C-alpha cells in the first residue's frame, strides 16, 4: 500500500529527471536522526515480539516460589538465571517483558486498524455526502472528543466488562474522531480538484471515486496519524491495564505488570521500573517515527 500511495504524487511533478518518490522520501526521512532512531527501536521491539518464545529464558507465566522478588543479575542476590530479576510470585521479568512487547505491538496495530477502517469510511461518507449526514457524523465525533479520553474509555469498558479485547475496542472508539476528521478534511480538499471532476465526468461511480481516486491521495496524513496513533493506543491500553480494566493478570501486559508491582515500590525497584521503561521507549519511538514521517510526507514543509 505504501509504495503505491507514495508514488501517486509523482504524477504532479513536472518532467525532467525527478528522483524516484521513494528515494526522495528516504532522503528526507533519513536526514531526521530522531526518526531513524525511532525506526531502529521499533524494529528492535518488533524482533523482541516475534522471537519472544526463543529469547525468553522462562515461560512468562511460570511461577517459582524459590525466587520471590529476586533482583537483576548485577545486584547482590541476583543471578543470570533471571537476568532482570523476578516479580512477587517468582516469574521471570525478562520473559514477561519480551511477551509484553508482543502484546503491546498487537494492541497498537489492532486499535489503529479498527479506528482507521471505521474512521476512513465515516470520513469519506461525511466528505462526500455533506448535508445532514455530515453534520450528524461530525457532531458525534465532537461529543467523543469533548469527553476526557480515558474517562470515555473507562465508561466503555464498564459497559463491556474489563479485558484486553474490550479495552482495545474502547481505545479504538476514543481515537476514532481523529481519523474521521483527517479523512474528511483531506476529502474536501481533494474533491474540488480537476482529476476528481475528470473521473466523475468520465462516469466513475461514487464508490470508485471515494476509494480509488480520492482515498489514495489522502494517504499521507493518514499514515502519519496511524503511526502516532499506535503510540496513543499503547499508552491508553497500558493505562487501562494499570487501572485493572485492561488485560487481566496473569497476562504479561506492561500496564498490568505495573499495577501488580505497585505495592512493591518500596522494596523492589526493578518490578516497577522496567515495564514502565519499556512503555516509554516504545511510545517515544513511535512518536519520533511519526514526527519524521510527517516532515518527510508533508508537501507544505518540503523545500
Amino acid at each position, binding site marked *: 500500500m505504501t509504495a503505491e500511495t507514495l508514488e501517486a504524487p509523482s504524477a504532479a511533478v513536472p518532467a525532467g529527471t525527478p528522483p524516484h518518490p521513494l528515494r526522495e522520501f528516504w532522503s528526507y526521512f533519513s536526514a531526521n536522526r530522531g526518526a531513524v532512531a525511532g525506526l531502529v527501536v521499533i524494529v528492535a521491539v518488533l524482533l523482541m515480539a516475534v522471537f519472544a518464545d526463543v529469547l525468553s529464558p522462562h515461560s512468562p507465566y511460570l511461577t517459582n516460589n524459590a525466587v520471590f522478588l529476586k533482583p537483576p543479575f548485577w545486584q547482590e542476590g541476583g543471578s543470570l538465571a533471571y537476568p532482570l530479576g523476578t516479580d512477587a510470585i517468582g516469574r521471570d521479568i525478562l520473559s514477561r517483558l519480551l511477551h509484553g512487547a508482543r502484546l503491546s505491538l498487537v494492541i497498537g496495530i489492532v486499535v489503529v486498524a479498527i479506528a482507521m477502517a471505521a474512521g476512513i469510511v465515516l470520513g469519506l461518507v461525511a466528505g462526500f455526502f455533506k448535508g445532514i449526514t455530515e453534520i450528524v457524523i461530525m457532531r458525534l465525533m465532537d461529543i467523543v472528543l469533548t469527553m476526557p479520553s*480515558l474517562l470515555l474509555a473507562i465508561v466503555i469498558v464498564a459497559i463491556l466488562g474489563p479485558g484486553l479485547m474490550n479495552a482495545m475496542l474502547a481505545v479504538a472508539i476514543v481515537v476514532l474522531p481523529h481519523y474521521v476528521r483527517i479523512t474528511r478534511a483531506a476529502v474536501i480538499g481533494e474533491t474540488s480538484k480537476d482529476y476528481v471532476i475528470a473521473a466523475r465526468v468520465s462516469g466513475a461511480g461514487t464508490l470508485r471515486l471515494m476509494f480509488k481516486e480520492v482515498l489514495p491521495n489522502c494517504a499521507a496524513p493518514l499514515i502519519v496519524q496511524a503511526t502516532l496513533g499506535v503510540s496513543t493506543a499503547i499508552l491508553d491500553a497500558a493505562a487501562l491495564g494499570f487501572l485493572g480494566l485492561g488485560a487481566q493478570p496473569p497476562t504479561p501486559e506492561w500496564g498490568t505488570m*505495573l499495577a501488580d508491582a505497585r505495592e512493591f515500590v518500596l522494596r523492589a525497584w526493578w518490578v516497577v521500573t522496567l515495564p514502565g521503561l519499556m512503555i516509554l521507549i516504545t511510545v*517515544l519511538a513511535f512518536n519520533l517515527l511519526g*514526527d519524521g514521517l510527517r516532515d518527510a510526507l508533508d508537501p507544505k514543509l518540503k523545500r
Partner: protein
Amino acid sequence: MLRFILTRVSLVIPTFIGITLLAFFLIRLVPGDPIETMAGERGIDPARHELLRKEFGFDKPVLTQYGIYISRVLQGDLGKSIVTRESVISEFSALFPATIELALCAIFLALAIGLPAGILAAVKRNSIFDHGVMGLSLTGYSMPIFWWGLLLILLFSVQLGITPVSGRIAVQYYIEPVTGFLTIDSLLAGDFGAFKSALSHLVLPAIVLGTVPLAVIARMTRSAMLEVLGEDYIRTARAKGMAPLRVIALHALRNALIPVVTVIGLQVGVLFTGAILTETIFSWPGVGKWLIEAISRRDYPVLQGGTLLIGVVVMSVNLLVDLLYGLINPRIRHAR
C-alpha cells in the same frame, strides 16, 4: 459579537444532549437489570423492585425514560451512591475542589516552565538547548504518567524521604474548608504547619499531572514562535534597529501566544484524563480516584453522574475558551 456568542452557545446543546445520552445509556447497557445494578450486590426484594421500576420509569418507553432522566438532571438530581447512600452531586462537589487544586497547580507548573523553554528554544533554534528542550518534551509527551508517578515516589519519597507518599495533608491537621483548596484554606486559618504539609503533598502529584501539558505547551510555543519570527514585520522591527529582546517580547510573543492559548484550553480534557491516573497513584481524594473506586465497587450511579458532571465541566470550559478567544481575536469572531 452577540451573534458569535449565540452561535457558539447553541453549538453546545447537541454536545450536552450527547453527554446525557451517554450517561443515560451507561446504566442501561451494563449487563443485567438496571434496578439490580443500581441496588448493588445486596440485592432487592421483589416488591421494592417493582416500586423502583415504577419510580424510575423503567416500565415506560425509552424516550419517556430519557425525558424523565433529563428533567431529573436539570433539577440537579443525579441519583444516590449505592455504597454511601449520599447524593452523587454532593459527593462530587465535596471532592471536586481537590481535583481543581491539583489541576491548577499542574497547569501553572506547565506554563511556568513550558512557555520560557519554548520561547528560548525558538530563539536559539538548532542550538543544543533547542534540541534538549525538544527531546525532553517529546519524552514528556510519551510518558506513561502512572509510571512516572511511581518513579517519583521511588526517588523522592522512598530514597530521599522528602515528600509524603499519598494523601492531601498529614492526618494531624484539620482545616475548615472555605475555598476547598487546602493550601489556601490553611493560610487563611494561619496554620503554617498545615500549609507546609499540604504543599509537600501537592508537589509530586502536580509534577506528574503537569508533565504532558508542559511538553505540549513547550512544543506549541516553540513552533508558534518560529512561525512568527519568520514574518515580515519581525524583519522590519529588526531592520529599524529595535533591541532583539524587545522584538521577541513585544512583537513576536504577543502574536505567538494566540495558538498557545487555544492549546492550553484544550488541555482541560487531558488534565482530567491525567487526574484519574495521578489521583489513583497518590491516593489524592479527588473526583478521578472517586470514579475509579466507583468502578471497582460497581457503584454505577456514581459512574453515571460523575461522567455527566465531568463531561459538562469540560464542555463548559471549552465553550469559555472559545468565547474568550473570540473576544481577544476579532478574526475568529467574524469568520463564518
